[in-house]
């Protein structure tokens, strides 16, 4: 089997997959759940239930509020107690539907059995509609509505569907566990998306540090009736799971600055999304569950878990079921240690894209004081976009927006490789992130002005 990787930059942090052998456990339902209206990229959904309404699990409680938006469903049966703004993990106030849980009664027509359904009977339009109705969004991190991504603009053609099973972030093991435990379901999900995209070549890309997952997928592929789906082993390297890096690794093509993956014929979907697509299309089950890892370097292995959670569960509830927040935790992160968000609010509820509760010790996460740049060039060597973070930092200090744009700050994917590798502990990304936002603003304003001028 050929081994591939992306061609520019990258780092090799220790993979710390401590919870890799923890089987997926189902979390019991809490008494109260808080379902966010903003758990996808794009416009927050509009609630369609009222306080006091009885709802069933899987029932639509909010509708998309724009082209890029998504349906939200109730994660359990119960009564709507309130619809009000509530702080999410980063402390941002977002409308939530509060549900007093009374049971686990589902809406009609949802197949909750474990029976594998391999025949794809729906046609392309029906599949897309089902994916939309079930509120499927990308579960690799960006939570972009899947039905939009699977429906490329007319004129562009998908040549390759890449299933992202890289899970290149240290610590995280939820994708690994579903690849082992839901192997066939993921492959059926891939076949469904392959059908939607007109039968393009499909690659399930997994990093080599997960050999069990690679062999499980190869074996399952041999026993299933789909064609033109292959598994690909990749060298371990961060950020291999970045969309642009994965396309480079698998297809040896690079997306132009500002372009979409489809411009080089690529569609990338996470393996967890493939599982959600399977459940939606074959089982008519809306996206209210996902898998998350409870891990960290200050958590003993017997307290580590991979959980099947439902959206709307408070993080504090999950932490308590898992055995409490460890004393030595200095930082709690939702997501991986490279790109995840530090949690300031444990009362926040899980969303579709939640992937972990990561407890990091003081020693592994405390930042050291920054010193002078020694011009070693490690940040440039590490940048997977081929940018020069030290230069962006200096241009930002000088307030040179033009220079920043010329140095392509807008291409930064915020992967954190520069900050990770800086021996002088300069928080490069902390400075580059706002600089990028500023330049993106300039670019958008310029595009809007050009459009307006054309309209005249």
């Amino acid at each position, binding site marked *: 089997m050929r081994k591939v990787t992306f061609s*520019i930059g990258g*780092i090799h*942090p220790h993979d710390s997959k401590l919870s890799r052998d923890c089987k997926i456990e189902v979390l019991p339902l809490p008494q109260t759940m808080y379902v966010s209206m903003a758990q996808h990229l794009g416009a927050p959904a509009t609630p369609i239930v009222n306080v006091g309404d009885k709802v069933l699990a899987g029932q639509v409680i909010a509708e998309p509020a724009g082209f890029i938006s998504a349906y939200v469903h109730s994660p359990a049966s119960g009564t709507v107690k309130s619809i009000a703004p509530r702080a999410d993990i980063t402390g941002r106030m977002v409308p939530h539907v509060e549900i007093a849980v009374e049971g686990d009664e589902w809406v009609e027509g949802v197949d909750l059995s474990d029976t594998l359904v391999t025949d794809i009977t729906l046609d392309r339009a029906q599949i897309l509609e089902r994916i939309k109705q079930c509120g499927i969004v990308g579960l690799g991190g960006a939570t972009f509505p899947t039905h939009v991504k699977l429906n490329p603009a007319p004129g562009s053609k998908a040549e390759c569907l890449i299933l992202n099973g890289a899970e290149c972030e*240290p610590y995280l093991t939820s994708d690994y566990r579903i690849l082992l435990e839901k192997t066939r379901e993921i492959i059926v999900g891939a076949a469904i998306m392959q059908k939607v995209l007109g039968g393009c070549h499909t690659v399930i890309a997994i990093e080599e540090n997960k050999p069990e997952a690679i062999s499980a997928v190869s074996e399952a592929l041999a026993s299933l009736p789909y064609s033109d789906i292959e598994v690909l082993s990749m060298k371990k390297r961060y950020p291999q799971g970045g969309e*642009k890096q994965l396309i*480079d690794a698998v297809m040896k093509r*690079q*997306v*132009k*600055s500002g372009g979409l993956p489809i411009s080089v014929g690529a569609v990338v979907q996470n393996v967890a999304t493939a599982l959600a697509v399977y459940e939606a299309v074959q089982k008519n089950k809306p996206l209210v569950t996902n898998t998350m890892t409870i891990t960290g370097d200050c958590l003993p292995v017997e307290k580590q878990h991979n959980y099947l959670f439902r959206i709307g569960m408070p993080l504090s509830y999950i932490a308590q079921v898992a055995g409490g927040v460890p004393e030595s*935790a*200095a*930082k*709690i*992160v939702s*997501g991986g*240690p*490279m*790109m*995840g*968000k*530090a*949690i*300031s609010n*444990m009362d926040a509820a899980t969303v579709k894209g939640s992937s972990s509760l*990561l407890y*990091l010790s003081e020693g*592994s*996460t*405390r*930042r*050291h004081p920054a*010193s*002078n*740049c*020694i*011009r*070693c*060039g*490690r940040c*440039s060597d590490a*940048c997977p*976009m*081929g*940018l*020069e973070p*030290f230069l962006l930092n200096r241009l930002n200090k000088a307030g040179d927006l033009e220079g920043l744009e010329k140095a*392509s700050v807008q*291409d930064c994917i915020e992967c*954190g490789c520069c*900050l*990770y*590798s800086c*021996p*002088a*502990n300069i*928080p490069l*990304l*902390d400075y580059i*992130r706002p600089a990028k936002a500023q330049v993106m603003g300039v670019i958008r304003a310029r595009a809007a002005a050009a459009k307006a001028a054309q309209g005249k």
Partner: protein
Amino acid sequence: MSNILVSPSPHIHSAVSTTSLMRDVVIALCPALLVSILFYGWSELLVIAVSVASCVLIEWAVTKFLMKAPCTISDLSAVVTGVLLAMNLPATTPWWVVFIGALFAIGVVKLTFGGLGQNIFNPAIAGRVFLLISFPTYLTDWTIPNGFIHSTDAVSGSTLLGRYAEGGVEAVAGTDYLQTLFLNIGGSAGEISALALLLGFAYLLVRKVIKPWIPLSIFLTVFVTSGIFYLIDPSTYTDPLFNLLTGGVILGACFMATDYVTSPMTTLGGVIYGVGIGFILMMIRYFGAYPEGMSFAILIMNMFVPLLNRWFHQSKYGRK
């Protein structure tokens, strides 16, 4: 929750720090240091001790009293400068000359530009050149002191390059290259053993402290340039191997030209920088007034580094 840290991502950091990199450089210099101490004895030990202590002391004093800035001696960069300065001086250099060299290297070349990372010239080399111009007698006094395992009756062994500059190719005929590779007594203390230096170079490569492109392009340029001249007229010009093994080429290429601060950031820039050093070095040796030339070659190319950094950039994603 009260003691929980909150910060933007990433939440983990590599173990490599400025201090660990500098420590690796010191470790890499240890084999050559050891050989020089063994063969040049107490006087070499004194040069090293004075050089390192003065560099650290001067950095501490200047940052504290003149710059009123945070003290930076713990990053070990002053130690590296001290060791390298000592290795670039004859073992017989008087302690006060060493101190003046350290004062110029750290106080003027490094700290007046803003400290580590801000200087244009390599401090250790600038310190050596400053001394060479100010105290030429001390800096070209190649008297060999008594070592711990090698005793002489204080013979004055002029360097191979010195002999070539005075007496031409005949003066250095019959040089035993194998001997020169292991042990080359005479010259700056640090260049006594090419092998020990190469061992340190290999350590830096294995630890990924430096990349090999700058030293390799210097070696190749020296080899090719002197090769061409040697082929044209072997009775006037020394051969390539002679030029690679003498006059601090290995010390300079592996440890001084690779200084992060004063070398280009990109590989292509680094190669051009290396080629420049190799070429200027050979021009000085064949046609210049100084017999050696490595220090001047590096200092001259140091000046081109900002330009090379401006001209050459990483290849960006999505531009191919």
